[in-house]
C-alpha cells in the first residue's frame, strides 16, 4: 500500500512540476518561477574479509563482497507550494544491521507543503520537534539508518507575530513502511520581549503535548506478554493512550542565556532492563515490563563575552522511554530525543568511547569553558559527569585543549582527555568480564599552510588504557591541494594490547594490530567524491547522542555527495 501511495505521490509531484511552465531545471529562478533543488549521497562498500581484526561471519565478508546505500532528494518549490521526494536504495547494506545484510529500495520520503499566509500545511513525511525534542523529535541520521519521520499531516498557525501554534498527527516511519501506532501532538511557542531597548530581556516560552495511541496489534502484544506475569510483577491494566507534556523557556539577557525544559510522561508500560522478573519456576531474570510515569528536566545556563564563554548543563531523566511500540528495543521506534550530556568529540581516539543517552535512569552534568588568553591563543575545557539516579557512575570526561594561531601560516591545537566509561552498561557487555574503561589521551593537531592553496595537517593521539583493547596510538597526515584535492593517510595501532579481555575474540585477543586508512577526496563545486581503503576496529558509533556498537570494518569505501 505504501508503495502505491509513494508512486502516486511521485506522479503528483511530477505533475506539479510539469504544470508550472516557468520552472527552472536546477536552482531558483528570480523571475518568480519554480525552483528544483536537492541532494544526492551514495556510499559503496567493498568488503574484504580479514580474520585478524574480526571482519568475518557477516554475509558481506563471507559471500556478498559489495554493498551500497544511496539517497536522492528532490525538492520543488513554486510560489507557496513546496514538494519533495527522496529515493532510498540499500543493496546488501550493513547500515540497518551492522551484522547483517539489508536490501530494498523505493520512495523513502515524500511531502507536500503549502503556505497559506498564517497557516502552513504539510502532508507526507514530517521532520520536526517540540521544544528541545524531549517529548518529540522526528529526524534523520544516515550513519545509523535512523529516520523516524512522522508520516501524516502537520499544521503551523501564526496566532500573532510572536505566537505560533503547531499540531500534527501520523504514524512513525520505519524503513519503507510505518509502525501501526498513531502519534499526535501540538505545541504553542511564543516570544516575549521585556526590559529596556538597550538591555532587552527576551523570553521564548513554549508548551507541548504529544500522545501515542497504541494500535490494536500493540495492545494485543502487551496483553499477551503481561498475562504471563505472576505475583507482584503483574500489571492488571494499562491504557491505549500515553501522554507527554513539556514546558520550556529560553531566556536571553545581555551576556546570559538560560534554557529550561521540564517534561512529564503519563504512566506507560515499557521494558525496564534493570527490573527483575520472577518466572513461573521461581527463576529471577533481569528485564521486565513495568507501568510507571516518567520525567525529564533539562537546563542549560550560558554566559559569553569576547574573552570567555561558559555553558553549564544539567539533566535528570527517569523512566522516559517513549517509543511508537514499547516492545521495541535498541534504536527502534524512538519518538523523542533526550539531549546528550557529553562533548561531541571529533578526533579518532577521543571519540572512541561515547555514552549513549540513558532513558531509564540518568543524572548528568556538563560544563564547557572557552577562553581567549591572548589574540592568538585560546583554550577550551569541558567536563561531563553522568550517573544513574541511584548514583552508579556511568561516564566521566575531562577534556581540555589550547589553540594557537600564527598569522595565517599555521595553527596548533594540543590538549588531553581523561575518561571513565562504563562499558558494560553502554555496550551491553557482561559485567563479569567487562571492566570500566579509564583512558588518558593526549593529542595534537597541526595545520600548516604551505602556500595559499596547499596545506598539510598532522594529527597525533595516544590513548593510554589498560581496559578494553588496551592502549592505542593514532596518526594522520592530510594534504590539501585546493580547490579540488585532499589526500589522507592514517593509522591506528594497538600499541599495548589487552591480553586478558575475554570480550575480544580469542583469535585476535592480545594482538598488536595496525588499522590503516588511505584516502583521496576530490571536490568540484557542490560535488564531493571520496575513495578510502579502511581497516577499522570494532567500536561505538554515535550520531547526535544516538549510539550503537559497530563491528570491525575491512575494505574500500567510495562516497559521493552532491547538492544542487
Amino acid at each position: 500500500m505504501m508503495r502505491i501511495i509513494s508512486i502516486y505521490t511521485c506522479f503528483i509531484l511530477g505533475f506539479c512540476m510539469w504544470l508550472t511552465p516557468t520552472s527552472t531545471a536546477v536552482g531558483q529562478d528570480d523571475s518568480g518561477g519554480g525552483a528544483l533543488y536537492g541532494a544526492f549521497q551514495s556510499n559503496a562498500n567493498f568488503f574484504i574479509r580479514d580474520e585478524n581484526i574480526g571482519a568475518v561471519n557477516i554475509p558481506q565478508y563471507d559471500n556478498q563482497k559489495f554493498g551500497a546505500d544511496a539517497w536522492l532528494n528532490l525538492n520543488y518549490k513554486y510560489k507557496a507550494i513546496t514538494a519533495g521526494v527522496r529515493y532510498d536504495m540499500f543493496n546488501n547494506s550493513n547500515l540497518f544491521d551492522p551484522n547483517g545484510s539489508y536490501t530494498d529500495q523505493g520512495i523513502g520520503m515524500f511531502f507536500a507543503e503549502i503556505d497559506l499566509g498564517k497557516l502552513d500545511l504539510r502532508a507526507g513525511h514530517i521532520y520536526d520537534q517540540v521544544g528541545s525534542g524531549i517529548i518529540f523529535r522526528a529526524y534523520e541520521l544516515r550513519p545509523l539508518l535512523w529516520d523516524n519521520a512522522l508520516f501524516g499531516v502537520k499544521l503551523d498557525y501564526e496566532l500573532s507575530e510572536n505566537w505560533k501554534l503547531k499540531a500534527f498527527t501520523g504514524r512513525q516511519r520505519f524503513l519503507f513502511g510505518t509502525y501501526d501506532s498513531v502519534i499526535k501532538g501540538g505545541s504553542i511557542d511564543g516570544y516575549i520581549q521585556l526590559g529596556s531597548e538597550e538591555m532587552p530581556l527576551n523570553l521564548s516560552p513554549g508548551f507541548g503535548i504529544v500522545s501515542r495511541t497504541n494500535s490494536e496489534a500493540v495492545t494485543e502484544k502487551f496483553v499477551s506478554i503481561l498475562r504471563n506475569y505472576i505475583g507482584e510483577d503483574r500489571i492488571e491494566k494499562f491504557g491505549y493512550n500515553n501522554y507527554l507534556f513539556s514546558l520550556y523557556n529560553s531566556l536571553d539577557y545581555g551576556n546570559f542565556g538560560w534554557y529550561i525544559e521540564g517534561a512529564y510522561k503519563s504512566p506507560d508500560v515499557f521494558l525496564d532492563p534493570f527490573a527483575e522478573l520472577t518466572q513461573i519456576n521461581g527463576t529471577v531474570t533481569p528485564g521486565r515490563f513495568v507501568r510507571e510515569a516518567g520525567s525529564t528536566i533539562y537546563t542549560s545556563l550560558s554566559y559569553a563575552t569576547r574573552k570567555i564563554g561558559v555553558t553549564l548543563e544539567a539533566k535528570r531523566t527517569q523512566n522516559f522511554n517513549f517509543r511508537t511500540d514499547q516492545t521495541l528495543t535498541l534504536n527502534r521506534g524512538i519518538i523523542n530525543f533526550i539531549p546528550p550530556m557529553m562533548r561531541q568529540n571529533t578526533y579518532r581516539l577521543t571519540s572512541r568511547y561515547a555514552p549513549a543517552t540513558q532513558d531509564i535512569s540518568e543524572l548528568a552534568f556538563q560544563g564547557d569553558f572557552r577562553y581567549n588568553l591572548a589574540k592568538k591563543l585560546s583554550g577550551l575545557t569541558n567536563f561531563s559527569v553522568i550517573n544513574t539516579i541511584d548514583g552508579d557512575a556511568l561516564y566521566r570526561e575531562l577534556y581540555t585543549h589550547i589553540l594557537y594561531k600564527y598569522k595565517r601560516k599555521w595553527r596548533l591545537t594540543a590538549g588531553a582527555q581523561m575518561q571513565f566509561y562504563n562499558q558494560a552498561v553502554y555496550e551491553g557487555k557482561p559485567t563479569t568480564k567487562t571492566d570500566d574503561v579509564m583512558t588518558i589521551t593526549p593529542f595534537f593537531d597541526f595545520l600548516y599552510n604551505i602556500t595559499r592553496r596547499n596545506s598539510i595537517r598532522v594529527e597525533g593521539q595516544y590513548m593510554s588504557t589498560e581496559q578494553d583493547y588496551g592502549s592505542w596510538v593514532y596518526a594522520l597526515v592530510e594534504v590539501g591541494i585546493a580547490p579540488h584535492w585532499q589526500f589522507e593517510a592514517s593509522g591506528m595501532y594497538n600499541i599495548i594490547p589487552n591480553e586478558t579481555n575475554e570480550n575480544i575474540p580469542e583469535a585476535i585477543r592480545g594482538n598488536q594490530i595496525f588499522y590503516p586508512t588511505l584516502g583521496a577526496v576530490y571536490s568540484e563545486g557542490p560535488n564531493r567524491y571520496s575513495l578510502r581503503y579502511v581497516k577499522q576496529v570494532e567500536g561505538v558509533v554515535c550520531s547526535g547522542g544516538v549510539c550503537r556498537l559497530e563491528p570491525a570494518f575491512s575494505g574500500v569505501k567510495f562516497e559521493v555527495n552532491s547538492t544542487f
Partner: protein
Amino acid sequence: MKNTLYLFVAMIMFSSCEEQLVMVPEFELPASDRVVLLEELTGVSCPNCPVGTAAIDQIKANYGKAVVAVGIHGNFLSWPTPENKYDFRNEDAAELEEYLRPWQGKPAASINRIKHTDDELSISTPAVWSNYIDAELNKEHVMNLLLTTNYNEETRDLDITVTMIPLKDFSSDDNVHISVMIVENKIIDAQEDNSTILKEFEHNHVLRTMVTSAKGNPVQQELVENTPINKDFSFTIPLPEEGDLLWVPENIDVIAFTHIVEGDTKDVLQAVKKKIIE
C-alpha cells in the same frame, strides 16, 4: 488572544479525555492444534542468554506441548568459555544462525520463522516471545504431523518416519520443505551469565545435528488434503568421547517440522517433537 486561549483549552481537553483501560487477563492457552517452533539463537559465551532460557522455561510451563523449542548454538557468542567442557557449535547451527537473520543480538528467537513488524526474523527480546507464539497459535492450522521413531540400543541406529497430513492442498510451487533435528537435553556445562559464570548450567534442547540439510529438504510433490505422506530418515547416534556425557539416548529428542522455502518466506507450518526413548 481569545483564540489562543480556546486552542490551548482544546489541547488540554484533547489530552485529558478519560479512556477505558485494558484489563490484563490471567494466562489461558489458546485453543489450537498448531504446534509452534521456537528456535532460540543462543550461546554459552552469551551473558544474556540465561534470560532466554528462563523465558523458554516459562513458555514451556504455560504452553506445554503447543511449543517445541530448540537451542541453536551457532557462531556469535557460542564459542566455549574456559570453564566449558563441551563445544555445542556445529555446521547446521551456524548455517541456521545466518538463515534466521535479521536479529539484533542474543538471545534471539525465531517463532515459526515469521518476519515480524520490525522486519526481524528473530526477536532479541525474550519478554515478547510469548506474544508471537499466541499469534501463531491463533492462525489457521494447515497440517498435522506425526512422528514415529525406532531406536536400536545396540547399533544406536535411529529410524525416523514423519507423516504429513495436510489439511489443505499444497502444490509443488508452494515449496514445502521438511526439516528433522536431533536435540539433546540435560547437558551440564558452563554458561556465561551477566553476574557470574554458571558452571553447572543445564542446557536443554541443544541442536546437535540435523538429519536433513540445515534449510530442510524439499518435499517435491503435491500435498493433497487429508492424504498422508510419509518421509523416512535414518541416523546413527554417535558414540561419545570417553568421559563425555553427550549423545545420551535417554536425553535425545527428534524434532520435525514442515515449512515453506520461497524467497523471503520461511514460514513453519507445523512442528512435532518426540523422545527417542520414551
